[in-house]
């Protein structure tokens, strides 16, 4: 409404604006062109000739094109605001003090990358109670740790120090940094950016860690797929995570991973890239080429500690996989705070017997990155390979599941190899028998054995300390990690239990995930109102605040209202000479509600066993009659997690 007139009064319509807007805008002062220097020279012919190029006043334009002055004024100012872009001033913010704007180096804000819908959804899941977040920051637990920040630091300070070691050779931190930068650029070139999910299905080989770090450098999010997983499990994870790319072997023995993932693209619409290691397969990208090739592209800013870092899927011992988003805050603060507790140092060599597809395996790597130690890689666990690697690679610490060491012991490998380099053995992943800890402590007199309890939801939550009294690691999994609180509660009343009482283990702290991704049903029951995570594990706390894990709530057998934890019964069954491994699961019963069904694998050379034999054995060991298994199922092998924990959910009772 220029000069106070309405459009109706001056006869301006949208049609008039559309018709004459552009020419008016161009004839006005908005674009100016001057040839020579006519004003200073008072060159009147040139001044007159160039008058239109220098921008006419509204009245002059009106006269030139046949509109009224008020119409021109209205149309010009309308165009001026309609064509006006806001937010350009921010281009200036980094300039000055010698910094100059360079058009060729500047990407307008509206052309800059943005998080995808999927990435924003993942970020939205990273929600923590503000009082807890404040506490974590004030206590120094949450800091600015990022994996790429740690890598940059180690590569700058000690470029020649070993970062990755295999029996074939070493890769220094400087070399690792370079390869990671190459691969990150190659990933970025194909459109992988901050917040995108990239899945990895590889064993513990250097390429795993290079890819892991490259994804992290971009601020993309890593999801790990266990090596034994095949199409059904992979599809479930890729779909739920909405992964944009997957990194895998081209093939491994009979498993044609690349072809499988190519086939899965039809079911997983977000999956754009299959990046394979090995021989070239049409439709896939070569991981080796991407690591070696130099791509001339500028990487985006790296992630920050609050960004999503991992999207892992729970081991699924009881149910279908659940997506666990974790930030650098969660994961790296845990590593940073635990490293001094475990006396880890720069000159250490870390070995994980557990695959990096499991957070426990990654934990050893995160600890190594926290201090700048070396990572000794065991691609696939075999008892003889583990002890051979320890003997030759001389690791200072090994992260292992009890079953790994038990398997080595079973065939006498611990006595045949030099394991003297080990200063630290950490057990986790499944329940560890006191005998195993004691035996190992006896065999490795100079080695400290640590028992740890962790979950995908929080990495390392509870563990024994190096200076604990003797026997602590055999009896318990120790005390909460720095930044973690733990308690044992009555699963039904929710009240905290006294020392010695068995109940549900609940934890909370700076390492705890914020909640399952896109799974409100699981989240509704996973947390208490005051933010404690219901782990589902049964535990007891002793008077020194050490916790002992005693089983899983879901594994409790409720036989006619009498509930018991089958863990003790399983341990007694495992001591039967005919039994290699046992697992007891509840069996529906119309009268009692539930009864116990024992699944067993037989010891080498044993062909059969009867239920009566088992019950007799248990009764001799003074077990209560109501805890005796009432059905026996012999299986060839147990379904195991990567940390060799029995997946009871996969034990199907015949005919049930």
């Amino acid at each position, binding site marked *: 409404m*220029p*000069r106070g007139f309405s459009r109706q009064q001056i006869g301006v319509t949208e049609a008039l604006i559309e018709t004459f807007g552009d020419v008016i*805008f161009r004839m006005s*002062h*908005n*674009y*100016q*062109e*001057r*040839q*020579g*220097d006519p*004003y*200073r*020279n*008072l060159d*009147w012919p040139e*001044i007159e000739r160039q008058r239109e190029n220098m*921008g*006419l*006043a*509204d*009245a*002059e334009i009106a006269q030139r094109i046949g509109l009224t002055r008020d119409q021109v*004024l209205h149309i*010009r*100012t309308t165009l*001026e*605001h309609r*064509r*006006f*872009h*806001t*937010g*350009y*001033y*921010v*281009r*200036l*913010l*980094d*300039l*000055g*003090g*010698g910094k*100059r*704007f*360079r*058009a060729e180096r*500047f990407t307008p804000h509206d052309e800059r990358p943005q998080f995808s819908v999927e990435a924003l959804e993942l970020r939205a899941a990273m929600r923590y109670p503000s009082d807890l977040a404040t506490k974590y920051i004030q206590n120094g637990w949450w800091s600015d740790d990022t994996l790429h920040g740690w890598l940059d630091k180690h590569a700058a300070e000690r470029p020649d120090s070993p970062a990755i070691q295999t029996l074939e050779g070493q890769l220094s931190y400087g070399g690792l940094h370079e390869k990671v930068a190459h691969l990150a650029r190659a990933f970025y070139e194909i459109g992988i950016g901050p917040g995108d999910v990239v899945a990895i299905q590889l064993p513990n080989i250097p390429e795993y860690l290079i890819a892991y770090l490259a994804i992290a450098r971009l601020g993309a999010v890593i999801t790990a797929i266990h090596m034994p997983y095949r199409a059904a499990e992979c599809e479930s994870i890729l779909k739920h995570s909405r992964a944009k790319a997957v990194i895998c072997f081209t093939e491994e023995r009979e498993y044609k991973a690349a072809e499988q993932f190519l086939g899965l693209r039809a079911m997983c619409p977000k999956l754009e890239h299959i990046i394979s290691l090995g021989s070239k397969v049409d439709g896939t990208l070569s991981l080796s080429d991407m690591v070696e090739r130099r791509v001339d592209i500028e990487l985006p800013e790296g992630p920050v500690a609050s960004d999503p870092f991992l999207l892992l899927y729970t081991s699924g011992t009881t149910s279908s996989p659940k997506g666990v988003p974790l930030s650098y805050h969660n994961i790296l603060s845990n590593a940073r705070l635990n490293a001094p507790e475990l006396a880890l140092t720069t000159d250490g060599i870390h070995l994980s017997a557990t695959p990096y597809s499991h957070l426990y395996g990654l934990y050893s790597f995160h600890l190594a990155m926290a201090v700048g130690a070396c990572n000794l890689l065991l691609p696939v666990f075999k008892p003889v390979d583990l002890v051979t690697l320890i003997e030759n690679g001389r690791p200072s610490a090994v992260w292992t599941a009890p079953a790994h060491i038990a398997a080595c012991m079973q065939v006498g490998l611990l006595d045949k190899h030099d394991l003297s380099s080990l200063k630290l053995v950490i057990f986790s992943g499944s329940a560890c028998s006191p005998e195993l800890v004691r035996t190992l402590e006896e065999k490795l007199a100079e080695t400290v054995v640590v028992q740890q309890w962790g979950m995908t939801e929080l990495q390392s939550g509870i563990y024994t300390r190096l200076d604990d009294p003797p026997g602590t690691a055999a009896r318990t999994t120790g005390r909460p990690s720095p930044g973690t609180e733990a308690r044992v509660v009555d699963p039904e009343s929710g009240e905290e239990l006294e020392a010695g009482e068995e109940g549900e283990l609940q934890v909370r702290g700076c390492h705890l995930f914020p909640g399952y991704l896109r799974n409100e049903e699981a989240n509704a029951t996973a947390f208490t109102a005051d933010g404690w995570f219901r782990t589902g594990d049964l535990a007891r706390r002793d008077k020194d605040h050490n916790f002992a894990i005693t089983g899983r709530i879901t594994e409790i057998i409720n036989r006619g209202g009498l509930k018991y934890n089958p863990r003790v019964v399983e341990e007694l069954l495992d001591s039967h000479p005919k039994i290699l491994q046992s697992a007891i699961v509840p069996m529906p019963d119309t009268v009692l509600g539930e009864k116990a069904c024992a699944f067993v694998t037989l010891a080498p050379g044993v062909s059969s066993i009867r239920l009566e034999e088992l019950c007799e054995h248990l009764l001799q060991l003074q077990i209560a009659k109501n805890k005796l298994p009432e059905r026996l199922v012999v299986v060839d092998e147990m379904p195991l997690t990567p940390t060799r924990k029995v997946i009871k959910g996969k034990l199907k009772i015949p005919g049930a």
Partner: protein
Amino acid sequence: MPESPQEIDPLEAKQSIVEYCKRKGALAVGVANLQAVERICPPGHRPTDIMPRVRSVISLGVGGQTQGAWSVPAKAMGYFGSTENHAYRIAYGLAFFIENHFGVRSVYCPPDMDPESGPRVPLQSLKVHAELAGIGARSLAGDILLHPDYGYMYFASVFTELDLPHDEPLASNPCPAPSCVELYRKVGQTPCMKFCPVQCLNGEIDENGKQKIMRYDMAACAEMTQQYEAVPAAIMEALEAPAGPDREDAIFDPDRKILWYKMSVGSGGLLGQCFECMRVCPIATNAPLADPVLRHRAATRDTQGGK
């Protein structure tokens, strides 16, 4: 006592006006050819449209900030880089000075925008006044005036019914500087063109190192500098944004809130400044008498040379 206009010696009056302005801090003072101004400026924007009996157009220029100011971040420069208020104060005083000493009506020319024409059209062109008064020449940087000795100045004008002899425009144009010509020969752009954050400057230099064509995309420049225009645009965007966080951001994100701040308490002056073309201009920043320190040193050299 005011003198009678008939008794005033134009040359002496001009001399006293120049002395007054310089005493108050002006670097350069000149009188524009009124007829030329009237002929160049469009109807409605001529001196006679403000003051029908105007006989003379006086233009004065003041210097900019310190040398150090050119090195501060652009976001700080935007607050204190301009010194036009200093020029306006001198012009305001000069109008009274003329009325007091010579008894003729004078007016401090309002430097503001024409209320009838929107925020991009001034009432008067201070640029034309200064250029014809011989205290600045049009540069390739969107016709910003530069002076060979004083570099980049801010201008103010006074209209008076006093007859004063007018000055001639500068005999030569300091823009482009030799170093700018050199860069242009290499990359096809002068520094001001190359480093403009919105690339609103374009042009050509002829074979003699003189300006051939100056192109200025004022609409683009406005998007960078005319922050008062951004305020209604931001409101419009907020109205058009979906309710919820998008609308909240459209009003309250830091960039938007700082607009309100500048519009209210934080401006300390006008807001139509970017400075990046002048920051890289060798004339603006390195003219021999561009600031008081340089002028003092030059005066000292002259004195010592005289001895």
